[in-house]
């Protein structure tokens, strides 16, 4: 899943469940907004070469999530 937070944080990971604490993801890659890599390039690399997991598990609080969508091929709807 691709998770976009209201403050701009973006994660890709395997969805496990939604609980009172939030959405639990496994093997999560986090986009570095302060880095030099544009998001489109970063997400394209995650798709092509696999998710470069920075977190084994991550809970994203539900109230911080702006968008939660299936991780699809770049350019796919």
């Amino acid at each position, binding site marked *: 899943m691709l998770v976009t937070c209201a403050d701009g944080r973006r994660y*890709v990971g*395997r969805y496990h469940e939604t609980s009172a604490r939030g959405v639990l993801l496994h093997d999560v890659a986090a986009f570095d907004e302060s880095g030099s890599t544009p998001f489109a390039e970063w997400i394209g690399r995650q798709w092509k*070469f*696999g998710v*470069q997991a920075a977190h084994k598990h991550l809970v994203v609080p539900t109230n911080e999530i702006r968008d939660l969508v299936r*991780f699809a091929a770049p350019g796919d709807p």
Partner: protein
Amino acid sequence: MPYDERLVAPMRAELVRHGVKELTSVAEVDAILGDPQGTQLLFVNSVCGCAAGSARPGLSLALRGSVKPAGLFTVFAGQDLEATARARSYFADYQPSSPSIALLKDGEVVYFMHRHQIEGRGPEAIAAELGVAFDRHCPA
């Protein structure tokens, strides 16, 4: 820790009966991937039900077509640990993922299907995508 082999055996057989050769040792992997010739498919098998349960039949469906890789091979992640690690070393740019499917041509990865591209899809969709890759990269 590897699963009981009795549990895994049917998952191995599901590929072997379609002509996919198992590589269970480093030596076997090196003999095949270390001497790349033409098109080779490597299926990284897995116990994972949510993805491998679709990937294995998806590959089986794809292999019914007339165009397919010249060599068909598999390693079993979580079971044949050393063989799997060695196989992954041949496409080290790609994150470890199981199940996954690599298509190599003369030793270069020309197509890769990760677990995240398998999960949530049925065998038919997986077979269709593999068929497109076979058509694009494998000689008829």
